[in-house]
C-alpha cells in the first residue's frame, strides 16, 4: 500500500513536473523573437542536457507499469514542444524575411542601366518600308551599279545622244561613255536582259543616283526606287491600281492619287502621279502650295523600244514602270523641312528615327 502510495506519488510527481516544464517552456517560447533565443530555448528544454532529458533520467525510479505511461507523456510533451518550436522558428523566419525585404526597397524612379540603341538612317527606313510593300505584292528586289555606261543609262532607255531630254538630267561623267547613273532606270534594262524570256518581270530597284545639282532642294546624290512590271496584257489601268495600292499602304488608306500626262523618254504614255496632300488631305496648305496634291512619282507604260532593248517582244508584251524619289517621301513622311539634313548625319537628327 505504502509502496503503491509511494509509487503513485513518484509517478504523479513526474507527471506534474513534465506538465510544469511544458507550460513553462511554452510560455517562455511565446515571448521569444529571434532565432538565437529560440536556439537557447531549445537547448534548455529539448537539448541533451535540457530539462526534459533531466526529468526522463529520473524514470529509473518508476515501476515497470508506470514507466511506459510516463514515457508516453514525456514523448507527448517533447513532440508538443517541438511543434511549438517549429511554428515559432517559421514565424520568426517569415518576419525576418519581411523585415529584410522591407529594408531592401529601392528607388524605382532612378534611370535604368544605360544600353546603346542604334538606328537605321531614315532613308533606309523608308526604303525598307517600300521594299516590304512591294515584296508583299510579289516583287523581287534588283540592284545595279552606281557607275553606269551611257548605253544602260541613256541609250537603251530611248535617250540617244543629243536627245534634248538628256538636258533633264545633268550628269557626272567619268569618261564620255561612262557616268554616274542619273536614275535607277538602267536596272530595268539590266534586269530584263538577265531574266528574258521569263515572265512576268516584277521588280523594284532602290539605289543611289547622281545629278549635277546642289541647292536647297537638290542634292548631287539622292535615292530612287524604280519599279518595273512586264507581262502579257499589262495595262495603264494596272499601273494606276498598283500605284494606288502602294500609296495607300505607304501614306494611309484614305490617300487618293491623280495622274497627269507627262513625258519620260522610256515610257509612253507617261504620267506624273500626285497623292492627296498628307498634311491637309486635299484642302490646301503650305506643303502642297495650296493645291491639295503632292507630286511623288513618275510613271508610264514601258516604251516599246525599251522592251526591245531589254530583249522582250513589244508586239506581244506590255509593261509599266515607275520611279520615286526616296528623299521626297522621307521628308513628307517625317515632316523634314530641309533635304540637306538627310546627308548631314547629325547624331541629334539620326537619333530621332
Amino acid at each position, binding site marked *: 500500500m505504502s509502496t503503491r502510495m509511494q509509487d503513485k506519488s513518484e509517478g504523479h510527481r513526474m507527471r506534474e513536473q513534465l506538465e510544469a516544464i511544458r507550460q513553462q517552456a511554452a510560455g517562455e517560447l511565446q515571448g521569444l523573437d529571434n532565432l538565437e533565443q529560440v536556439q537557447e530555448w531549445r537547448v534548455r528544454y529539448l537539448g541533451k542536457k535540457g530539462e526534459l532529458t533531466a526529468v526522463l533520467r529520473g524514470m529509473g525510479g518508476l515501476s515497470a507499469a508506470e514507466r511506459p505511461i510516463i514515457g508516453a507523456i514525456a514523448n507527448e510533451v517533447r513532440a508538443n514542444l517541438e511543434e511549438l518550436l517549429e511554428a515559432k522558428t517559421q514565424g520568426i523566419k517569415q518576419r525576418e524575411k519581411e523585415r529584410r525585404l522591407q529594408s531592401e526597397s529601392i528607388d524605382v524612379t532612378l534611370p535604368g542601366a544605360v544600353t546603346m540603341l542604334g538606328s537605321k538612317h531614315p532613308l533606309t527606313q523608308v526604303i525598307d518600308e517600300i521594299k516590304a510593300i512591294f515584296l508583299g505584292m510579289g516583287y523581287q528586289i534588283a540592284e545595279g551599279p552606281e557607275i553606269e555606261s551611257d548605253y544602260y543609262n541613256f541609250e537603251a532607255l530611248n535617250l540617244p545622244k543629243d536627245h534634248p531630254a538628256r538636258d533633264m538630267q545633268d550628269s557626272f561623267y567619268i569618261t564620255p561613255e561612262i557616268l554616274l547613273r542619273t536614275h535607277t532606270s538602267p536596272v530595268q534594262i539590266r534586269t530584263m536582259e538577265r531574266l528574258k524570256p521569263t515572265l512576268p518581270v516584277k521588280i523594284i530597284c532602290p539605289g543611289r543616283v547622281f545629278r549635277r545639282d546642289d541647292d536647297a532642294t537638290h542634292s548631287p546624290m539622292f535615292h530612287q526606287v524604280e519599279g518595273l512590271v512586264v507581262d502579257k496584257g499589262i495595262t*495603264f489601268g494596272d499601273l494606276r491600281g498598283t500605284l494606288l495600292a502602294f500609296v495607300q499602304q505607304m501614306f494611309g488608306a484614305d490617300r487618293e492619287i491623280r495622274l497627269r500626262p507627262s513625258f519620260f523618254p522610256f515610257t509612253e504614255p507617261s504620267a506624273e502621279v500626285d497623292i492627296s496632300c498628307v498634311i491637309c488631305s486635299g484642302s490646301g496648305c503650305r506643303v502642297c502650295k495650296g493645291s491639295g496634291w503632292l507630286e511623288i512619282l513618275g510613271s508610264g507604260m514601258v516604251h516599246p523600244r525599251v522592251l526591245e532593248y531589254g530583249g522582250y517582244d513589244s508586239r506581244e508584251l506590255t509593261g509599266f514602270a515607275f520611279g520615286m524619289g526616296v528623299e521626297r517621301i522621307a521628308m513628307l513622311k517625317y515632316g523634314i523641312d530641309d533635304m540637306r539634313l538627310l546627308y548631314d548625319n547629325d547624331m541629334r537628327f539620326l537619333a530621332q528615327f
Partner: protein
Amino acid sequence: MRISMDWLGEYVAHEMTATDLAEKLTRSGIAVENVICRDRGLDHVVVGLVQRIEKHPAADKLWVCQIETGNGETTIVTGAQNVRQGHKVPVALPGACLPNGLTITPVDFRGIPSAGMLCSAQELGLDEKTIAPADRDGILILSDAAVIGKPVAAALGLDVPVLELELTPNRSDCLAVLNVAREVAAITEAPLQLPKQYAGADDQCCNGGDGCTGNKDDLCCTQDRVRITINDGDLCGRYAARLFTNLRLGPSPVWMQQRLQSAGMRPINNMVDITNYVMLELGHPLHAFDYHTIAQGEIIVRRAQDGEVLTTLDGQERTLNAGNLVIADPEKAIALAGVMGGLATEVTDNTKVVLLEAAHFNPASIRRTARQVGLRSEASQRFEKGVNVDTILFALDRTAQLVEELGVADVVPGYVDVYERPSKAASVAFSVERINGLLGTNVDGATMAHYWQRLGMTVTWSDPEGNAQGVVEVPTYRPDITGEHDLAEEVARLYGYDNIPTTLPQGATTVGQRTWPQLVQERLGEVMVASGLREVITFSFINPRHLDRLGLPENHRLRQVVAVTNPLSEEQGIMRSIILPNLLEVAARNSSRRTTDIGIFELGSVFAHPASPEPLKELPEERKKLAALLMGQPAAGWRQKPGPYDFYDLKAVIEKLLACLKINGVTWQATGALPYLHPGRAALLTVEQDGATMELGWIGEVHPDVTEAYDLPGRPVAMELDVQLLTMLARAFGEYKALPRFPSTDRDMAMLLPETVPASQVEAVIAATGGTLVDRWRLFDLYQGAQIPAGYRSLAYTLRYQASDRTLTDDEVNQAHEAIKAALTAQVGARFR
C-alpha cells in the same frame, strides 16, 4: 514659255478663265506652272497727265507736280528727275498697296502735301529685262495713247493674266502660241483661227522679164537678188529668205510691245519686234540681215573653217571650228547659224533693205554650238528642240504680212527657198484593240478618231467597217508622235487619265522574296543597330584631298581612284575607294557641334580604278563595304562609368556579326601596314578558303596623324569589311550538334607570359594539346602591373572539359590540364604559380 490670255484668245475662242484653262491644260499634258496676274498691287494706280511741274521751294531735288488724274488735279511731290510737263505717268493714289509692299498715304514734303506717288517700272513690278534700259530709271513715262484716269494696269496691258508653261521635251511644239492654241482647241473643241499671212497680188518673181531692170539697187523680186547655197545639207535642211525694202525703223505698236513683254521679251524696234513676235507666235526663229552688207547678195550655209573668226552681235570676236555651222557670203561668215548674228550685217538705222532668213538647222549641232559659245537665246532654244521644217514659208509670209500691215517696210515680191529633201508627214498605223489593251480602256474607234482629228490628225480606216484599225497622218508640228504608243497617249489624255479604270495586274501569282545577298545585308544592318551604332548615309564621291589626309603614300592601292571629269566642286572629285574618310568627316562635323561620343556605320560601295587602261573602257569595280567608327565613350550613367571606346569594343561588334552570320575561322592578324591606322593597334581579318587567303577587312585605331588631320577629339577606332565576302561565307544556320549527355568539368589556369606572346598562340596550344577533351575556353582575366615582372603579363583562362561518351574522371581532367600547362610552358614560355 509665257503666253498672255489675250494673245491665245486671238486664235481660239475658248471662253474659259485663266485658272480653269490652266487646270485643263495641266490635266491633259501641257503643264501650266503658274497663272501670273501682273496687275496684283496696281489697284488705285492710274494714268495721270503732268499739267505743271516746278521745283520744290524748300528742297533742291524735289519737284512739285500738278497731275490730272481724271478726277481733278492733284499735287504730287516727286524726287525723280525725268518728269516733264505733258508726260503721262503712273500715279499711285492713297489706298494703293504696290507690288513691293509700299502702302500709299498722303505725305507732307517740307510743307507741301503730296497726295500720292509717281511710280517707276520697278515699283509697278515690271520685269526689268522687258524694259528698255533708258526706262529702267526714274518714273515710267507712259505712251501718249494712255487714257487719263484709267488704271495703269490696263494702259500697260498688265490686266491680262499670263500662263507660264512648263513644257516637257517632247512638246517643244508648244513653244509657239499658235500650237498651244491648237491644243486648247482640241481640249475645248472650240474652232481654231489661223493668223493672216501675206498674199500680195504680185508676190511672184519677175524672172528678169517686165519690170526687171537688172540694176542691183532696184529690187524687182527676191529671186533675182538673192542666191542661196547649202553646202552642208546634213546641218541645214532648208533655208528660205525674203526681202523687205524701204525700211522705216521705229518703235512697234504698243499692243505688240506689250505681247512681247508678256512673254518676257524686250521690245527693240519694229523690225526686230516683228521677227520676235512671229517666233513666239509660230515657233520659228527668224533672223534679219542688212541686205547691202551681204557680198553679192549671196548666202552660203556651210561649216566654219577651223580658226575662222566672226564678230557676233554682242561685239565679241569668236574663233570658230568645223563643228560650227555658219551663214556666210562669198567672202566671210556673217552669222553663227541659229545661235547669233554677226555684227557687220546687223540691221541698223542706216539699213534700207532687209534680208529675212527662215531656216531649219540640225538641232544637235545648234545645241553644241550654243553650249560652246555659252549662249542660249529664245531662238537657239527653239532650234535645239527642232523647228517645224514645213512651215518655214508660213513664217516668212506671216512676217511679210506684219511688215506690210504695220508699214515697217515694203515687201519685195517673191522668195527664195532651198529645200532639197522635203520631209514627209509621218503615218502611224494603229489598232483600236491594241490601244485599249495598252490603256485598259474600252474606247470605241470613232471616239479615238475624233480625239485625233481634234488634234489636227487625219484618220484613214483600213477595215471596211471603219472601227478596228487604220492609219493616222500626223501633222508636221507634232514630230513627237511616231508610234502607236504615242497615239495611245493622245487618246488617254483626251479621254482623261482619271477616267481610266483602276485595276491590278492579272497574271500568275509571284513570290516576293529577297536574295541571299539582300538577306545578309539586311542582317548586317540589324546587328550593327543592335550593337548600338547609328547608320549614316554619305556621298559616294569624295574630295581627293581625303586621300592625303589619310596619309596614303604615292602609289597606294587606294589611290587607284575613279575620277569624275565634271564635278560641281572638288567635293565630288573622285569616287571613294574607302568609306573611312566619310565617317571621319561625320565624326568631325558632329564633334564640332559638341557631340563627341559617336558610334556610326555605313553600308555602301567603294570603287577601284583598274591598274590599266586609262581611260576606262569597262565599268570600274564596285564593291559593297560595311564600315564603322566608334569615338568617345559609350553612354555613361549613374551605374556605369565606361572608359573610352577602344579596339576591343569594335572587335566585339565584329565578333557579334560573325557569330550572327555563322562565320568561323576568321584570323585576326596584327598589321602595321595600313597607313591610316595606328601601327600597333590594327588587324587584318583574313579567311582561308580552298587554300587561298582572302582579306575580309580591317579594324584598328585611327592613326594619330589622321585624327589630327580631321581635328577629332579622342582616339577613334574604325573598321571596314567586305560585304560580298561576308555574304559568301555566311550561313543561314549552323550545323546542329547533339547536346552533351555527360556532365562537364571546369578548371582554371593562370599563367605568366612574356607580353610578346599573343593570346592566339596560347589558345592554339590549348586547342592542339587539349584535343577533343577541351570543349571551350574563356579568358577571364588579364593582368599586368604590380607583382608581375616587367615584360610579362598574366592571363587566366577557364577551360571546360567534356567527353561525349562518358563522364570524365578527376584523374583524366587533371592529366589533360597538366598536359596543357606543360605544353604552354614548353611552347610559349608560360610560367605557372
